[in-house]
């Protein structure tokens, strides 16, 4: 009784602190606020959500059954299906879901101020993203670890299955293009960054060789050697940067680098995995977890002040990084970190096959996403501790603020975010770069933010090192996503082409491997190429498109979840997945509507295409712009049709789900629930956990 009271009191205090911190960040106007309040608000909200909402979903909505044998226990084949300690599964699951997305989205959304993005990351994760991950993991576990696409087909019908497949492929293509663009923008005319990123390729190959031939299977040894070499590469980059003859080799235009990235992507896709992809993944996973931990420690130790206002004037839609007002675009810009549809693929892929017990679903599904959301909060902090003027100078494309440094600072200062050319030059010098202007995409400003946080926590003298360390860290796992994504795209394409000609479906037949890899690389390479030649910075176009497609995939996962809840007689709980689904449908449709119909050339695809076409016809464009105008016009139109396609797919799935639900409620036949039969677990009684 007494114990119970203490516990309730503790949770009450958490709630009070959370409410206090949240109202502090939300109501604060004028003076700057400390990042620790964001951390405190996030931690309290996560703790409350996990303790109460997730526990309630686990107990009442999904009714997790710890006496029921999981697929891992029933099949236990030592390969895919292995009952695994929940902390290990948590580690695998988190490493799989946390990619560069939660670092980039919040950085871009910081143009609205810190508040809209932060609130969406917190609320979106707690009510949307975590629920999606947890329910998908549960439903897949109850269906022998079936994939989202299979569940959509089984539970709703063929349309859902096809939509999930097509959606995944499209997201992959757009995601890789935009990530490639982020890396290119970080490397252009930066010999230090380019040489460091280039060095990661031979390092990964060396590690691959070590793990395969020199000391087979010694993953930790190989990884530690690789990590040491990566740090050496960061330090060596300075030496290359200072050497007049060597630096020319690594000093390139964005377009040249884009071709390198495309060429690299193709090679990585056709090379055997042990050579590049697998060792690079080991390095990037360690790097990712280590840096996230380091960033968390640094933020807590040094408690930086947030310099960005809570809201900026750009909530009206005139933002320099991407056009569009705070509603709906903040919700599209931050997908990963709040709700990410892609997680549903992991939660219905490897993870359900490792669960030793159903009760771990809460910690792994809900808890894993909470941790990713926390990473997004830290990215938001790293972006907003910068002077707003500096933030906009780094992230505004030259086409918006002007190519010359003087023009750019004048434009940005006129928005009320004072910044000077000297300030930017000093900063660039400190970071060991020639210039930091117009490095749109999030990686460089995040790196500057991280460098200043690390610098003040662990020593100011190494700012340039920290900056390039942060660039290398992002590049390493962006390139991993690029390799892995191209590969997955290739498999999906081969699977599809196999229906037309069985030979093409054989993943070991080299002509088919090369053809399908080339098609996937050409698809993302096209968007990357256009993004680089677009003077307004392709991020403005590509990131919203990525957000819309990722939210659409989330809507598919939540539709499957809602459909299953209704079909299994839990109509009264259907709002748990229904509310996030409704919200996603609203924001995706609103964003798509604006991207299609807005007259603002920075928002509407058709408006931009028509505007450019009119200018081209009048001869109003300078020759270098006129040369690329036809390609840009075509691209804007293509993007418009893609957006329309995504939103139509979204509504087809929602309507399909509603049709199935309404038929079920009216007692008409629907596809049967495919839950596997109950089999008692034998692990519970004879296995002492933890």
């Amino acid at each position: 009784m007494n114990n119970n009271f203490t516990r309730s009191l503790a949770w009450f205090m958490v709630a009070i602190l959370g409410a206090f911190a949240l109202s502090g960040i939300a109501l604060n106007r004028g003076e700057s606020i400390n990042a620790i309040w964001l951390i405190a608000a996030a931690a309290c909200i996560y703790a409350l959500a996990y303790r109460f909402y997730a526990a309630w979903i686990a107990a009442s909505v999904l009714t997790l059954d710890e006496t029921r044998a999981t697929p891992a226990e029933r099949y236990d084949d030592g390969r895919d299906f292995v009952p695994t300690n929940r902390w290990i599964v948590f580690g695998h699951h988190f490493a799989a879901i946390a990619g560069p997305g939660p670092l980039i989205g919040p950085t871009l959304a910081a143009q609205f101020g810190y508040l809209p993005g932060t609130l969406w990351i917190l609320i979106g994760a707690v009510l949307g993203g975590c629920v999606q991950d947890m329910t998908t993991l549960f439903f897949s576990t109850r269906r022998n670890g079936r994939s989202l696409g299979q569940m959509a087909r089984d539970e709703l019908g063929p349309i859902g299955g096809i939509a999930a497949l097509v959606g995944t492929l499209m997201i992959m293509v757009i995601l890789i293009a935009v990530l490639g663009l982020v890396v290119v923008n970080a490397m252009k005319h930066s010999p230090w960054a380019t040489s460091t990123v280039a060095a990661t390729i031979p390092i990964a190959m060396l590690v691959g060789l070590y793990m395969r031939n020199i000391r087979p299977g010694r993953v930790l040894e190989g990884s530690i050697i690789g990590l040491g070499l990566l740090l050496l590469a960061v330090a060596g980059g300075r030496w290359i940067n200072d050497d007049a003859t060597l630096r020319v080799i690594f000093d390139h235009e964005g377009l040249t680098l884009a071709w390198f990235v495309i060429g690299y992507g193709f090679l990585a896709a056709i090379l055997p995995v042990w050579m590049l992809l697998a060792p690079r993944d080991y390095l990037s996973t360690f790097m990712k977890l280590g840096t996230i931990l380091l960033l968390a420690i640094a933020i807590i130790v040094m408690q930086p002040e947030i310099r960005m206002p809570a809201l900026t004037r750009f909530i009206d839609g005139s933002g320099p990084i991407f056009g569009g007002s705070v509603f709906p675009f903040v919700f599209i810009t931050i997908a990963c970190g709040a709700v990410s549809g892609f997680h549903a693929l992991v939660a219905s892929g490897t993870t359900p096959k490792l669960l030793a017990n159903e009760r771990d679903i809460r910690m792994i599904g809900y808890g894993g996403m909470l941790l990713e959301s926390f990473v997004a909060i830290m990215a938001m902090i790293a972006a907003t501790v910068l002077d707003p003027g500096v933030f906009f100078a780094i992230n505004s494309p030259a086409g918006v603020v002007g190519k010359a440094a003087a023009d750019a600072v004048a434009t940005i200062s006129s928005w009320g975010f004072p910044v000077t050319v000297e300030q930017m030059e000093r900063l660039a010098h400190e970071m060991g770069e020639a210039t930091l202007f117009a490095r749109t995409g999030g990686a460089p400003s995040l790196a500057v933010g991280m460098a200043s946080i690390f610098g003040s926590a662990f020593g100011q003298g190494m700012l340039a090192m920290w900056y390039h360390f942060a660039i290398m860290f992002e590049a390493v796992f962006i390139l991993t996503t690029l390799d892995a994504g191209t590969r997955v795209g290739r498999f999906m394409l081969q699977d599809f082409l196999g229906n037309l000609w069985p030979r093409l479906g054989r993943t070991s037949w080299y002509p088919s491997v090369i053809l399908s890899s080339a098609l996937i690389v050409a698809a993302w390479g096209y968007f990357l190429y256009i993004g680089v030649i677009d003077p307004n910075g392709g991020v403005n176009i590509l990131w919203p498109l990525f957000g819309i497609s990722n939210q659409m995939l989330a809507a598919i996962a939540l539709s499957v979840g809602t459909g299953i809840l209704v079909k299994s007689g839990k109509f009264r709980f259907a709002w748990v997945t229904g509310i996030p689904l409704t919200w996603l449908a609203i924001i995706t449709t609103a964003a798509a509507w604006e991207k299609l119909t807005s007259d603002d050339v920075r928002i509407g695809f058709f408006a931009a295409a028509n505007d450019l076409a009119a200018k081209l016809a009048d001869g109003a464009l300078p020759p270098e712009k006129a040369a690329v105008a036809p390609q840009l016009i075509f691209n804007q139109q293509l993007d418009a049709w893609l957006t329309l396609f995504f939103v139509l797919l979204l509504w087809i799935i929602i309507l399909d789900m509603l049709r199935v639900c309404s038929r079920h409620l009216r007692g008409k036949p629907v596809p049967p629930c495919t839950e596997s039969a109950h089999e008692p677990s034998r692990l519970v009684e004879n296995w002492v956990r933890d």
Partner: protein
Amino acid sequence: MWQKLWPILRQLSGDDAYERYLAHHAKAHPEEPALARKEFFQREQERKWNGIRRCC
């Protein structure tokens, strides 16, 4: 502390995958010969990347 963390780190990274495979193999198929460490590692790595392993 370290004695608890080390096995977790090894299992998370897959460093002990071969030992776990041998244990499983001895239990499930004692009559068949087990793969050598090198063959096992090559086969597993190939298999592991045939699907969605990483997200955005």
